[in-house]
């Protein structure tokens, strides 16, 4: 009898603990007025995320009264869904994801741009003779389906009259490209390109933006009710992030060190290369970090509409909110 009671009690406690979320769904204010805030990344931890860890470690976020938790994204951790569901207060998402989510009725808004230019590239071995999208005809090309990467690819195909190509799905492994099973592979300038170069693979990088296809890259998102109910928190968050980016750009070695300290599985050498490759994407012609330009959003929306990724008629004022921290 007692054994049954003990077993049932233990199982009940485990079930209850399994449902408890130890990280609050809404920002918790401590006695000093510091808010516990979580931000969900778009992908697994990597050198592109140095500012977050630098800002947290050096006290920048705390000076803005934010106790920041940085959480990894990935294929099974959609920042859009997690932010919309309230699991995280802020998130990093693709500009295409943010616009599409808004069109689907997801109550999130974009409040800042991290990557002012598209980080999407297409790589070929330098001895393949493939230098521009014009050379993609009749070639075997690895692409990612279902999001902005595919749209940018299709835009380039249309613009440069590519024909006869064989499209194969990208398997999130560089081996098919290295083994020359494909002629051209999709890549990110600060990810796969860095990895390939560090392996001393001579390659030609064809950046989408260099060929006139240049939507916004990653953006910061939050729920629209967070912006409405806690505008000061959002402003503080953007201000802190801007300071963190400035600091991490000025002190790249220190920045990478804070990342690797938090995520020991990462390598200093690799993430330094990734962070240095990321920096050029952060500052636009306006010279400021995170600031959004409406014309660039219009350009991004138009590109996504042209290839059916977005239906026409999305009101940018609903999807994009300008937050200017003082």
């Amino acid at each position, binding site marked *: 009898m007692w054994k049954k009671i003990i077993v049932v009690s233990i199982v009940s406690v485990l079930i209850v603990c399994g449902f408890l979320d130890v990280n609050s769904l809404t920002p918790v204010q401590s006695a000093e007025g510091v808010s516990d805030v979580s931000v969900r990344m778009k992908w697994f931890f990597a050198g592109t995320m140095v500012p977050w860890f630098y800002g947290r470690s050096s006290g920048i976020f705390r000076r803005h009264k934010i106790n920041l938790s940085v959480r990894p994204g990935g294929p099974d951790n*959609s920042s*859009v*869904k997690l932010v*919309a*569901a309230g699991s995280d207060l802020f998130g990093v998402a693709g500009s295409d994801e943010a616009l*599409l*989510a808004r069109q*689907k*009725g*997801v109550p999130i808004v974009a409040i800042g741009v991290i990557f002012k230019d598209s980080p999407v590239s297409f790589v070929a071995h330098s001895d393949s003779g493939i230098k521009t999208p014009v050379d993609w005809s009749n070639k075997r090309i690895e692409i990612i*389906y*279902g*999001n902005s990467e595919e749209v940018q690819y299709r835009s380039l195909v249309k613009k440069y009259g590519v024909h006869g190509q064989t*499209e*194969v*799905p990208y*398997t*999130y*492994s560089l*081996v*098919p490209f290295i*083994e020359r*099973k494909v002629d051209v592979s999709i890549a990110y300038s600060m990810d796969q390109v860095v990895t390939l170069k560090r392996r001393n693979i001579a390659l030609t990088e064809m950046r989408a933006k260099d060929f006139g296809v240049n939507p916004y890259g990653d953006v910061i998102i939050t729920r629209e009710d967070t912006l409405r109910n806690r505008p000061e928190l959002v402003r503080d968050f953007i201000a802190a992030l801007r300071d963190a980016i400035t600091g991490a750009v000025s002190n790249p070695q220190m920045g990478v060190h804070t990342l690797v300290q938090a995520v020991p599985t990462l390598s200093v050498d690799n993430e330094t290369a990734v962070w240095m490759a990321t920096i050029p994407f952060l500052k636009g012609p306006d010279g400021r970090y995170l600031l959004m330009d409406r014309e660039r959003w219009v350009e991004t929306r138009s590109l996504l509409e042209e290839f059916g*990724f977005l239906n026409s008629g999305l009101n940018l004022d609903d999807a994009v909110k300008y937050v200017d921290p003082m």
Partner: protein
Amino acid sequence: MVRIRTAMIAAAMIALMVGIWAAACYTFKLPSYLVPNPFEVLKVIWGDWAVLISHAGVTAEAALFAAVLASGLAAVVGAVIFFMPRLSSPTIISIITLQSFPAVALVPLLTIWLGNGLSPRVALGSFFAFFPQAIAVTRAVRDLDREKVEFFESLAARGSQIFWQLVVPSATPGFFAGMRIGAPLAVVGCLVSEISSSDRGLGFYMLVASRRLETAQVFAGVILAAGMGLAAYGLVVVTERFLTPWRDVLAIE
């Protein structure tokens, strides 16, 4: 009569689950991009029927080949165990060890070795399906009644005669028991391969739908995939009844 009642109970349980699902969506006002209500999913299945069937057909083709390949390999393992009984324990240990291998890590390697298309999907599907079938066949051969084997030997039967006339009929129930688990797993393996490295199939359909926040489409794909797994199980049951008419096999045990 029993089967009709069983089917009606199953249908009632499914209807109950769908009802709870709809009630939860309505009561908690769950957003459709997180949890679509069942009527939205039905609408997608109805409206996208042709597209869904096309993708399901691609998955089904690969799953069928995968299940057959896995069954063939499992049968070979059983034959090896019979003719070389000392390999029995090492074989089982090896199979269990290989089963722990993260199959998802195989996806890019299979693409390298086999290219894109049917082959890597069949390979991964058979990887998923092979293990339960191999274990079941191995046990069936090991548990063979030794007295019957000795009786055959006393009649000067050759090894091949004992194998085809005693071992195969005796191990067939175990073989099909493994197939009942393995066949649905072949579907799962093909879906995993499609999610990671294909431009067709239900796995690909669900991946793209997920990226586009079309969660109702994802659910539609899941329902079709579940149906495919159930159909695979049913096909094994029917095949078993046809090939082993001496056994009283229940549709659902």
